[in-house]
């Protein structure tokens, strides 16, 4: 690890100001950033911890009924406190291990946008709104490829708003070593249609499987997607599975998620 400065502001405004330094970086739970720094693969000049910002903590229900989760809320807190959105609480409860869940935050996960992380699937399938210090970004516009998002330099995710679906479920098939999603599928059924988001599988990061969405919006049952699988083109092939295997898993996990949601 290289030397760096450290700040722990207590307001969003102070955090934004602190992030104005060149090569400063926001620190959520540090579950990805700190190991990367220990490997000397990242060298921020300054870390700005978001853990001390009270207004970024916790879960509440918005006027429109959406579940609003502060950007610095840990996975463990979402697992315990997002009962109004069982599919999302279940997703949070299955991230990493207890130590990761006790430190890692929803804002950190979405800002990092690891192509095998769980939260991107939850946010995209929910049509969530990513609220930052500067603006509100629709999930469909937010995810822009592996480790790439719509966030500008120094922009902080302060809150994530999830419309609560009628039915939902997240199915994760774990990569055997890292226990990240080899493939993860989040299915959410809303009054105006079904959204299906897939993580772990694509070279472009989290994506919506529109073909399945169309089929499920007409008939929300596993049978509706029984013979359907996404194209293997553009899916990841690595030590742990070929693109064809991942495409197959997307199909299996989508059926399981629908069955579990019903």
């Amino acid at each position, binding site marked *: 690890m290289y030397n760096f400065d450290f700040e722990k502001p207590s307001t969003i405004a102070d955090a934004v100001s602190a992030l104005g330094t060149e090569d400063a970086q926001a620190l959520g739970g540090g579950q990805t950033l700190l190991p990367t720094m220990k490997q000397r693969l990242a060298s921020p000049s300054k870390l700005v911890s978001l853990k001390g910002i009270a207004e970024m903590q916790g879960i509440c229900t918005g006027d429109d009924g959406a579940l609003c989760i502060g950007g610095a809320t840990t996975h463990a807190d979402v697992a315990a406190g997002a009962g109004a959105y069982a599919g999302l609480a279940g997703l949070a409860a299955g991230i990493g291990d207890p130590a990761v869940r006790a430190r890692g935050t929803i804002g950190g996960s979405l800002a990092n946008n690891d192509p095998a992380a769980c939260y991107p699937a939850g946010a995209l399938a929910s049509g969530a709104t990513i609220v930052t210090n500067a603006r509100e970004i629709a999930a469909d516009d937010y995810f822009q490829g592996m480790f790439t998002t719509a966030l500008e330099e120094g922009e902080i995710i302060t809150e994530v708003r999830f419309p609560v679906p009628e039915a939902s479920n997240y199915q994760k098939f774990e990569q055997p*070593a890292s226990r990240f999603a*080899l493939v993860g599928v989040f299915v959410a059924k809303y009054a105006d249609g079904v959204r299906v988001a897939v993580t772990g599988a694509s070279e472009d990061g989290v994506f919506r499987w529109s073909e399945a969405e169309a089929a499920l919006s007409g008939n929300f049952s596993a049978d509706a997607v029984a013979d359907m699988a996404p194209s293997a083109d553009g899916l990841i092939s*690595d030590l742990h599975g070929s693109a064809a295997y991942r495409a197959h898993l997307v199909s299996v996990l989508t059926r399981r998620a629908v069955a579990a949601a019903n």
Partner: protein
Amino acid sequence: MPKDSGIGASPKRREDVRFLSGTGNYTDDIQVNGQAYVHFLRSDIAHAKIIGINLDAASAMPGVIKIFTGADFEGVGGIPCGWQVTDRHGEPMQEPAHPVLAQGKVRYVGDQIAAVVAETLEQARDAAEAIEVDLEELPAVVDMKAALAEGATKVHDDLTSNLCYDWGFVEENKPAVDAAFEAAAHVTTLELRNNRLVANPMEPRVAIGDFNRATGESTLYTTSQNPHVIRLLMGAFVLGIPEHKLRVVAPDVGGGFGTKIFHYAEEAFCTFAAKALNRAVKWTSTRSEAFISDAHGRDHVTKIELALDADNNFTALRTDTYANMGAYLSTFAPSVPTWLHGTLMAGNYKTPLIYVNVKAVFTNTVPVDAYRGAGRPEATYQLERVIDKAARELGVDPIALRRQNFITEFPYATPVAVEYDTGDYHGTMDALEKMADLSGFETRRKESEARGKLRGFGVNCYIEACGIAPSNLVGQLGARAGLYESATVRVNATGGIVVMTGSHSHGQGHETSFPQVIAEMIGIDESMVEIEHGDTANTPMGMGTYGSRSIAVGGSAMVRATEKIIAKAKKIAAHLMEAAEADIELKDGAFSVAGTDKSVAWGDVTLAAYVPHNYPLEDIEPGLEETAFYDPANFTYPSGAYACEVEVDPDTGKVTIEAFNAADDFGNIINPMIVDGQVHGGIGQGIGQALLENAAYDENGQLLSASYMDYAMPRASDVPFYGVDHSSQTPCTHNPLGVKGCGEAGAIGSPPAVVNAVVDALRSGGHDIHHIDMPVSPSRVWQAMNG
């Protein structure tokens, strides 16, 4: 009624109190006054010529004391290999030089280019980044068969090829074996890979070199399974330090699994640099470094053929194996695919004719050497897989086919040059069938099928050869070391005992089990006995711990030394009681005169030995301390039968282990609880190999699974509660305790059971599958089902 002390009792492991309470003393806990830190700059290219190394900027960095390169080690010895294999033509193996720091070329990702010694570790790392290395990349040699092709790039330019040796065993048997295959009623052939593994002990390696200018003595603190071997190899072959000027200390060691047997360049470097700089120099491996610098295990590619007659008797076995040596020969690497592998190919079966061919190959990968089981798992895996395949091809029950071919008469001389002293293979199989509830399997399979899952049952047997010996035989086989063990038993004046053993405990529980033996022999409480090990300054020359040898060889040395103690103590007791020595009996810690009520306590005798006022000084010396060196007459041969039951999810290919049962014959057992634990750990590692672990290289020689993000270790949720039975005991005939050793059995016996079970499950689902290479990962199972 179980015993509560002595041999056969299960006292809790006394060493665990310090291990579990954070009060152990591991090498990294040792802080030598004024120590500096070294960071090794390692190659990130698998194969390259070193054109130049510019240290100017790096040397000027804050805190840098000195940066060493290969040039600093010209005239210094290289890392030696401890075993020379003679090939099938009678020629010695090709043995490349192995410099402490790379000279001329780098040969694997992880090879040391330079070593930066600085005041702090961070300063050393900073400076290492400022070293300018000019490398000319060469084609990487990764695939073993390609490495042996005509015109292949050579890993070592001064060798004739990438072939280390072409070994035939037993070469004279080859024509008869080939003839038996011609005459066979059935031949089963299987090609497989025994996957490369990274040992991953919980404690990474650490080395601290120290030099005492006043006495001229060097000290190396290191994470080793055998400090005396390190002292001998490093002192005699690398640095030219006589043993009386070199002390090697291996304190508490957090797991070894073989990878801490070997003498590594980092140890020699720290010892060398400490003298050169007159500063202690410390190196602590990071986990990332461990993946590319600890010797790897396994990595065999094998074709095995089994010949059977019309009555399904095994008539011949023939194998053709390529064994990866990596870029350099690690300490015992050449012995693993040969004498620890070929000699085991008979397994538990009376196959009359066997021929084993092994080609050992240099590649641009991390050196490969012994890993828990070392050669024996490779032998067992291929043999037990091909037998299972034969049973399916012939439509016979896999257990019945094995039983039909079991060796039943002992001693049994195999056609691969070893003689099994004892065993009861039907006995362990009987115990296994009962424990595994084989008769209930079909019901369980139907239950699984009702849930959409495929269930499979896999069984296998294993034979192990532990306590490699005797020394004069292994010398003929190419070992450059003896394989005896030593113990000094020091009885103190007030009766307490310290045993200084050449064995080394790095998780095996010697501090608990060894005292049980002495307590039983003398009849005193185990708490009166302490075990010291791991420091060449206060233990007799010993060979350390590996190959499940500690209780069989080290324990025997301790018994021999204790017998000498008891013999002398009886003389003292006879004098004290004015009786004839022949009439003295020792029981429950007291000496008595047979047929009388005269008695003296153990403590009276030990006190007399050190306060010899009333003592036969004209006949015997004062004091009570004896040393024994024990060199066994033969290997020991634990054996067993293992069964695994799996469920396969046909939708995803995921395998879950539903049950695992192990019936072992370890001969006599000192501490059943510790034996259970050894078997549990071994099975866990075997399941890891079978389902999860895979050290995979890409075609450029980059290790793809170089961290826990991609190298899958077994976790608690991956393994079931094990059934373990060691009631079938045929004691070893040639050591005083009748023990056989248990450390590696679990890792040897479990991988074939897992794979046999997976194949069984898939075949029950109508898939015509004969084999899936390990690790049997979800994607590989799915590929097999859908390929």
